[in-house]
């Protein structure tokens, strides 16, 4: 009862289970501006979907969820399109470089080791930094949150700020309330693109901290702009995976996105009610939990030494 056959995955699934899963991940996506692939793909594999199909179909559903989230955030004035496009261009270039790096690493052997270690270190560093910073900020500020966040964009004249100001092609990003060189989002986009390609994920959870701490964007604009950027990244991945590997299961993606698009709308409402620092601290907690889960799986002996190939 309530089962549906997935022709590309070659398995049947409980419709309610997949709708619920989509809803939960869509909610997270709407709140934090992450694609949720790092959560969804392992869960789908757990429910019997082949890893390659799980990852590709998830990209397809993220297209729907991030469209829904981007539309909602755009209405709230939370999408910096100019910044998003520059990050996206950088991300595409970085993704291409990353794919070549991973080929070289695989040829050298032990690529998986490097990928896993990069993953754990990145998650640990990003999660801890964001957690501590937002905790301190929450403790300090009984003062107004968001206006202060935007106003305090140029803090002290640190080396980093002076470096940012010294770069050519300075431009103003109205929605984010920052002025910087176009090379900053382009360069950081390349950086995130490389990491995302190496780690085999969308990169939302790296992009969000990069926007907050390195591009000094206000948290709510970060969420909307991140979703905008993820939308285009996943469009590219879905078409490429369909064309080259035939791994996109549209039936699975459709079920997931029915749940996730609704979830993303509720997520946006929740996001609106939370303060910037609260959002950061919850995201930091999720990132740290994923890091701990990964570390545990790296340190504990698996039940089976053999697993199906493919996926993240």
């Amino acid at each position, binding site marked *: 009862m309530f*089962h*549906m*056959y997935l*022709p*590309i995955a*070659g*398995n*049947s699934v409980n419709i309610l289970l997949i709708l619920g899963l989509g809803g939960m991940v869509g909610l997270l996506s709407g709140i934090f501006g992450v694609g949720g692939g790092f959560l969804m793909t392992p869960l789908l594999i757990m429910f*019997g979907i082949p890893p390659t199909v799980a990852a590709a179909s998830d990209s*397809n*559903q993220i*297209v*729907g*969820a*991030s*469209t*829904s*989230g*981007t*539309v*909602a955030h755009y*209405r709230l004035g939370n999408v910096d399109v100019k910044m998003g496009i520059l990050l996206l261009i950088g991300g595409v270039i970085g993704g291409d470089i990353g794919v070549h790096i991973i080929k070289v690493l695989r040829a050298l052997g*032990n690529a*998986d*080791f490097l990928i*896993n270690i990069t993953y754990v270190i990145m998650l640990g560093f990003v999660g801890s930094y964001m957690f501590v910073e937002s905790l301190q900020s929450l403790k300090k500020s009984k003062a107004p949150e968001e206006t202060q966040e935007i106003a305090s964009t140029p803090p002290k004249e640190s080396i980093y700020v002076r470096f940012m100001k010294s770069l050519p092609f300075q431009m103003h990003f109205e929605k984010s309330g920052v002025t910087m060189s176009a090379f900053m989002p382009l360069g950081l986009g390349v950086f995130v693109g490389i990491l995302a390609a190496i780690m085999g994920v969308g990169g939302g959870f790296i992009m969000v901290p990069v926007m907050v701490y390195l591009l000094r964007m206000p948290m709510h604009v970060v969420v909307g702009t991140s979703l905008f950027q993820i939308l285009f990244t996943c*469009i590219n991945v*879905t*078409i*490429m*995976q*369909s*064309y*080259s590997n*035939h791994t*996109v299961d*549209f*039936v699975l*993606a*459709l079920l997931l*996105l*029915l749940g996730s*698009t*609704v979830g*993303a*709308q509720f997520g*946006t*409402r929740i996001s609106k009610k939370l303060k910037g620092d609260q959002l950061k601290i919850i995201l930091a907690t999720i990132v740290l939990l994923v890091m701990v889960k990964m570390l545990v799986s*790296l*340190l*504990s*002996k*698996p039940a*089976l*030494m*053999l*697993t*199906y*190939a*493919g996926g993240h």
Partner: protein
Amino acid sequence: MKHVKTLIFALMILMCFPLGAIAFTHVPKTIYIGTTYNGAKMHISGEIGSNEDAVVQILGSDQEAHFKLKGKVWGIFWMTVAHLTFKHSPSVYMLYLPHHLATLGESQLEKWGFGYPVIYSRITIEPPPKNKQQIFEDFLKLKQKDKLYKIEDNGITYTMRGDKKVFDAVVNLPPKIPPGRYEIKVYRIGPDKHIRGVETDYFEIKLKGFPLFISQMAFNHSLLYGILAVIIAVMAGFLMGFLFKDKGGAH
């Protein structure tokens, strides 16, 4: 003269299996995978001699399967250490035995050409691992978890029809079984524990309706399929945005 030779040859073949054919039937002959498919049941039955036993074997076509092998790195981390390709592994292996034959043990089954050791001997793994047996056991566990490999120890039931025994096997085909042509073999085992005869037939699993349409699109028109998948996802996203806007929540 040519006809006589053919007749003699046919008689020689018949003498190899002296006690008549099994003439089993299986229902359904073709299984269709539709939108709500979640596995299927198939009945295999036929007549055998009153002192004989029946063994039913279902075999999928050989396939090449790819796996990741985990191992210890630096003495502490468990992660992928090799990528392995299994060749000549059947996509499906199911064996249905009457209880008292199953109790004879794996070595007797192997003599008859049944059971997992037979699969083990035909599979090749590339690159060849040091511990093939251990890796094969993990492979079996994965296949058994997907219900694609199984040995039913009490999988044959009998009823008497005059002096003939009628065997019946109920085969549960799992949702993960891939579309394709499958071979059914029914073996007749005598009281002396020798195979007296074997009969082969086939059944097919086919996609139909929406799953067939999606599969054909994905494999035959992959670029169009990818673009349509994106367009529909974007439209669904916009639709949700529009619906929620009307309820006044997004401001």
